[in-house]
């Protein structure tokens, strides 16, 4: 542990406060020892429920100071004058000034009405004098690129702007360590890029140590210099990003279900097949392109560029939902303007667009939650306005982004059975079908548990299962893979693929372009309430003007496969396969 460290843990353990007279459970964090260099950019990885947030809240001091629990060992924080000191030597309020945290959802963090009040809120609480408060507000807003936003109302900001305001509020305190809990998870690709660029700028200007918990690692991995892996109450690392991917890359993806960068996936798959790339595991597309280029393979003449979409062989069926000249407004604010498009049976349709473009509003028209101001939404040829709501809800299943909002029963079993009882099935049939479905979604062993106590992945599977058990003709999902790990996301999308293959029309709203590339048969882009694109994902990613206008971004595999192959592919597996085939071809030629 040297004086250059911003933070260090020595044999640190933490136990949650026992609930309701129960004995204390096992340690939630056990014997952690690591040090983080001053000015580092650290990525904290771990599967859902592994203890990432518990670690972050301990580093900040919320645990055990505010929400109880017991800790043991030492946590050292850099002090400008005394070097590393035990955190306990500081007053609780002072600890937050040194190590601060930005939560996943900025809505949870905004507590005032205007931007300047929000940024100045903590400064007022810490008794800063007004001139200093104003100086710091200006500085923090400049750092996050929101100079002209001082008097804006917080409620009127976009998701990305709110996140940057919340970040500015933290920066105004000038902490030495800043922890960010999934800061981009609610943002569209452009909003994500803005926030990450802001973090880069802040690090450059202030030299602050940043620790980020993130699932979407494609944009992050080549920015960070340190990786920590939280697994089973322990923290592994620190690693350098390349060292982490090299030692644990495919293992964390395949065994733990963590996302890794697409370029690294290709590099690791090639390595597994015996092709070692120069420079080790690539962290981004540029490194992969250079390393594969150095292999001297003839990738451009392998001639399969017409197979652009991974899903283009799917034959879409009859229209299930037809949107005809639909307009919709909230009060005087128009949200949807004269939309026309169709969702067909047997297809997975992705609706994409920037935050606030009207995607969720559009989806809410499909099952009659909202009705269009003009035009009509037809389900099986009949306007939604002519359906009885409960009847329409059975035909068009709508699945919220947050699974908890979907639960209406006290047990997992009843959640599934509820939908079957609504169909008037006998109890014996309900039981048979429910058990079958619980097996399918791997929740049979939790049949008597409360839906609220499941893990996030289990909740998502349950919410989907509960809505599709009645075999609806249309399934509409809002951000289906939000907060899901690699395996959970894939399992869920395979389930949806199965529903589509069985004749349902599946419509999903997402910001995840990787998901669109890998699973969508078709993508519709909403921009300022209008459909500006309707076609295959491949066509979408080739339409640069549409992407720019709607603040979207093609997945990185699309970009670097285009550089490598001349014609892009949609998945890392496809690219790896093409490289391996070329290598194999070259080998045979040589022989």
């Amino acid at each position, binding site marked *: 542990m040297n004086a250059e460290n911003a933070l260090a843990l020595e044999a640190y353990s933490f136990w949650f406060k026992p609930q309701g007279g129960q004995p204390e459970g096992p340690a939630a964090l056990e014997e952690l020892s690591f040090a983080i260099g001053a000015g580092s950019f650290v990525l904290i990885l771990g599967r859902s429920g592994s203890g990432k947030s518990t670690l972050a*809240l301990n580093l900040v001091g919320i645990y055990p100071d505010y929400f109880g629990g017991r800790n043991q060992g030492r946590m050292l924080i850099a002090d400008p004058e005394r070097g590393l000191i035990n955190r306990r030597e500081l007053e609780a309020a002072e600890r937050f000034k040194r190590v601060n945290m930005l939560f996943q959802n900025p809505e949870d963090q905004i507590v005032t009405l205007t931007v300047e009040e929000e940024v100045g809120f903590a400064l007022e*609480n810490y008794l800063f004098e007004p001139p200093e408060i104003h100086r710091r507000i200006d500085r923090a807003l400049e750092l996050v690129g929101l100079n002209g936003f001082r008097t804006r109302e917080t409620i009127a900001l976009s998701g990305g702007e709110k996140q940057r305001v919340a970040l500015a509020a933290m920066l105004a305190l000038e902490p030495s360590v800043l922890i960010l809990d999934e800061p981009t998870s609610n943002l569209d690709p452009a909003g994500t890029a803005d926030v990450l660029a802001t973090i880069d700028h802040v690090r450059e200007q202030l030299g602050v140590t940043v620790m980020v918990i993130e699932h979407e690692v494609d944009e992050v991995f080549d920015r960070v210099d340190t990786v920590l892996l939280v697994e089973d109450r322990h923290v592994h690392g620190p690693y350098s990003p390349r060292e982490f991917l090299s030692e644990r890359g495919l293992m964390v993806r395949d065994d733990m279900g963590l996302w890794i960068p697409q370029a690294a996936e290709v590099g690791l798959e090639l390595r597994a097949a015996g092709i070692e790339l120069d420079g080790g595991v690539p962290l981004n597309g540029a490194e992969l392109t250079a390393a594969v280029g150095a292999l001297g393979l003839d990738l451009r003449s392998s001639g399969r560029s017409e197979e652009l979409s991974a899903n283009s062989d799917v034959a879409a069926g009859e229209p299930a939902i037809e949107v005809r000249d639909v307009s919709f407004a909230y009060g005087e604010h128009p949200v949807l303007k004269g939309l026309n498009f169709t969702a067909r049976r047997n297809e997975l349709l992705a609706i994409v667009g920037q935050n606030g473009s009207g995607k969720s509003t559009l989806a809410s028209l499909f099952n009659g939650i909202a009705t269009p101001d003009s035009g009509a939404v037809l389900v099986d040829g009949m306007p939604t306005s002519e359906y009885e709501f409960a009847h329409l*809800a059975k035909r068009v299943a709508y699945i919220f982004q947050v699974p908890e909002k979907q*639960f209406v029963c006290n047990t997992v079993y009843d959640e599934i059975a509820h939908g079957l009882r609504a169909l008037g099935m006998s109890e014996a049939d309900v039981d048979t079908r429910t058990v079958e479905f619980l097996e399918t979604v791997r929740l049979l062993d939790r049949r008597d548990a409360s839906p609220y106590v499941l893990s996030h992945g289990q909740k998502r599977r349950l919410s989907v299962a509960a809505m599709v058990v009645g075999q609806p003709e249309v399934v509409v999902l809002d951000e289906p893979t939000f907060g899901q790990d690699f395996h959970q996301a894939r399992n869920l999308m395979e389930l949806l693929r199965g529903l589509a293959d069985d004749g349902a029309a599946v419509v999903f709203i997402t910001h995840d372009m990787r998901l669109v590339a890998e699973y969508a048969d078709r993508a519709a882009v909403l921009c300022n309430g209008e459909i500006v694109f309707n076609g295959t994902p491949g066509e979408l990613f080739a339409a640069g003007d549409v992407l720019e206008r709607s603040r979207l971004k093609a997945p990185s595999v699309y970009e670097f496969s285009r550089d490598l192959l001349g014609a892009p592919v949609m998945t890392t597996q496809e690219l790896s396969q093409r490289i391996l085939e070329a290598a194999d071809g070259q080998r045979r030629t040589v022989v």
Partner: protein
Amino acid sequence: MANVELSFKQGDSLFHRMTPFSKLLLVLSVSFVAIFNTNLYVGIGLFLFCLFFSLFLTGVPFRQYWALGKIIVPFVMILAIVFPFFYGGQATVGSDAIALRTPIKDLSWGALGFGALLGLRFLALALAGLSFAFTTHPTDLVQNLARRGWDYRLVHAPVLGLILFPSFLKLGRELSITQRIRDLGQNTNWLKRKWIRVTHLAFSMLVLGLRNGQTQAMALDIRGYGAYKTRTFMREVPKHRAGEIFAWVFFVLSIIYLIYQFNPATMQWNIAS
């Protein structure tokens, strides 16, 4: 603020310049007189006074008041129309001469005056409350009361409420949509279905609301909320002497009036009996 109904409107009217404490004093005075007054003419006067300052001293367009007024007016009409039938001489608001014969009951001038007084009372309260809400920035209220010795954590609670209330409403709306989508209470009668839905709504809002509340509490702690007994304020709320005098004068007058007209025998709820 687009989504908050009772929200501050920027302006430079007399009411905007008054300190939040002065306005609070004025509104409290109006409220006490409105609630305890038993004289119809004072009720009319108070209503006109509130209408005057709402329309001419706050600088807020009438349509802003009407946006909420249209919700309150039916309630006021019900009070004014229904309550005369329950008049038992609780207030000196008219003679006992029959003014209106109805199939249910013959209504005296006193009964009609009683209904009118009730209606005017709520209109005066609504106008005073809205004038306060439209012209008082919540942060100024926190500062003004904190400077008068109130605990800032206590007075900041309404601001938090103002910010968090829309998200709480949104949660309720989403849960309600879920109940409709999933046909909660299916195959039960209307009453039982309502009961099932209300209990589910209450439980889910409690669980999810507590979870959100916990995160927000952490967010406040992290930002030093409550770390010290006092706090600084980035911007001073200017004092407005004339407004303060006006509010105190009205307060004193209202106390004098209430003492003058206090008569247990003529109070609406007849506390003498």
